[in-house]
């Protein structure tokens, strides 16, 4: 067997570092910056950065579908919201335990994802997008009208649990430890998702994106792969929901509303689909633009008008997104 070009270690720079080394050095540099950031930034921007990371996790989860499996989901708000409500419900009904909240949030998101995946993966392309959108609206209507359990329009408010690591650490969250906690979860999720997309399973997903009939013809059970992909994606979206609930100490129905899903797709397209880090960058770009616009133009000005125009322009002129140029390199 001859060695294919992919097997060779490819020296990227003149220094002679391998691709892997450069990737990990880059990863560590970014991590160090993000770890150090809350120590330097003022309170507002610290929270801002934490939220960007959470939105980034949500967008990254949906990138698994959009960028790798080739299915645009317009229903990620359902997973996000159910993660949020699952965590809030556990914190209110049982004990204020962080890990219990995560467990319940993930369970909620997983059940939703199973339900959505079962029905929506029968459909492709546009039909998939519409179906996920409608499913997320079903959950929105249920949450909005089931006032007795979900608090209806007011949502659920609770006290933030302690950051509790058994036998080691138990203290209240400060905005700094919150940021670090979110960072650990998001970075961990990134590594897991990256591993997934590079695994044989991820390769099948990408081949579904490239040519579904041919993948089926080779003999892969495409429907099952798609379902697992939707469920994985939903699970990570639910994790983002849990983090958001814990950070803001509430769960509200607007986050289950379609706009959250739409913004998730915007983050993906702005940052560059199929890169995993791109969506985080996209989320940061979007949130930063939004913050700056509302500072310069006043709170009353609907920031989505200029941002929507930027979004349309990016679809037309920069369909690869901000990080699209690095897509191949990041996925190697």
């Amino acid at each position, binding site marked *: 067997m001859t060695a294919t070009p992919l097997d060779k270690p490819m020296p990227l720079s003149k220094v002679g570092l391998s691709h892997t080394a450069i990737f990990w050095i880059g990863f560590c540099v970014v991590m160090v910056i993000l770890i150090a950031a809350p120590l330097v930034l003022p309170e507002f921007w610290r929270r801002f950065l934490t939220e960007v990371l959470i939105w980034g996790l949500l967008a990254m989860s949906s990138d698994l579908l959009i960028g790798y499996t080739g299915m*645009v989901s317009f229903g990620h708000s359902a997973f996000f919201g159910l993660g949020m409500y699952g965590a809030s419900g556990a914190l209110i009904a049982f004990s204020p335990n962080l890990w219990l909240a995560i467990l319940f949030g993930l369970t909620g998101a997983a059940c939703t994802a199973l339900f959505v995946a079962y*029905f*929506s993966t*029968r*459909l492709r*392309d*546009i*039909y998939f*997008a*519409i*179906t996920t*959108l*409608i*499913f997320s*609206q*079903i959950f929105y*209507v*249920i949450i*909005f*009208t089931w006032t007795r359990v979900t608090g209806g329009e007011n949502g659920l408010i609770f006290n933030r649990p302690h950051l509790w690591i058994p036998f080691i650490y138990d203290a209240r969250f400060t905005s700094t430890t919150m940021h670090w906690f979110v960072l650990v979860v998001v970075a961990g999720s990134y590594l897991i998702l990256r591993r997934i997309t590079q695994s044989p399973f991820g390769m099948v997903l990408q081949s579904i994106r490239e040519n579904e009939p041919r993948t089926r013809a080779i003999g892969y059970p495409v429907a099952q792969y798609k379902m697992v992909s939707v469920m994985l994606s939903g699970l990570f979206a639910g994790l983002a929901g849990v983090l958001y609930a814990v950070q803001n100490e509430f769960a509200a129905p607007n986050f289950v509303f*379609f706009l959250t899903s*739409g913004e998730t*797709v*915007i983050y993906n*397209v702005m940052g560059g689909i199929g890169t995993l880090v791109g969506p985080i960058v996209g989320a940061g770009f979007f949130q930063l633009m939004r913050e700056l616009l509302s500072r310069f133009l006043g709170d009353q*000005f*609907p920031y*989505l*008008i200029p*941002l*929507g*125009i930027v*979004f*349309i322009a990016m*679809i*037309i002129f920069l*369909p690869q997104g901000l990080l699209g140029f690095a897509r191949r390199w990041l996925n190697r």
Partner: protein
Amino acid sequence: MDAVSQFFHAIPFDLILIQTINGIVTGMILALIASGLTLIFGIMDVVNFAHGELFMLGAYVGVVIVATTGSFWLGLIASALIMAIFGAALQIITLRPLVGRDPLNTILATFGASLVLQNYALWQFGPVSRKIPEPISSRFTLFYLQYPWYRIVIALLSAAIIGGFWLFLKYSKFGIWIRATAQDRVMAQAMGIPVPLVYTGVFALGSAMAAASGVLFAPTTGVDHSMGLDWVLKAFIVVVVGGMGNLGGSILAAIFISLLEAYAAIWLDPSQAVIVSFVVLILTLLFRPTGLFVATPK
């Protein structure tokens, strides 16, 4: 026997009749919106997320014209014309550069357009809902209700517009172009049909129909910036249930779903009645993914 008669007494026949009329009226408006949506999809492979916003903007244009001129019918026609021009411009700016790319790009572009339009409406007209006075204020007695004639007129007018549109597709030159493009884009172009013009024309036509339904609907509950999303979601359900790109199917599906929702509203809260149409959608997807009102594919 007693149980049977009790059962029949428990059915509120008067309510059912009222809700049947309500359902048909809403269904006709929905059919008008959905036929534009399904037309745009069938011809251009574009899922127009901004369709609800075209409906909403059309209604607002109607509100403004009715407020300045005082004539509802002038408002209806002018709004349809203005929104047709606007729709053509929107198509040229946002969709024409995307021709030939993955259809998913067009969803994203129209989604961006819908965000911009919705927020523009919020910014321009404020969050308070506006209302147009009913052009026909007479009513007739329906059981204990004074039912407005205007609602019946809505249903008839919508039917007339859809009928006129059908005739236009069937017999006019442009209609034949549209159908030819829907059948085979490349061949149509080879035959000398200006396909880009047909695309723009179809989008303008769909926008005009959405605007017309917006103005017709405006006197019943009022106009606000967020009404587009509700309607576009319903229209999506209708289009999927009726079969994508199938005009007759979506009209039937629109009436079917509106009737179901109207009946459900007898026993449920109206906001929960929406779930009925979601359930219809799920069942359709499970058993007839190609649509309820199309011939079974062989």
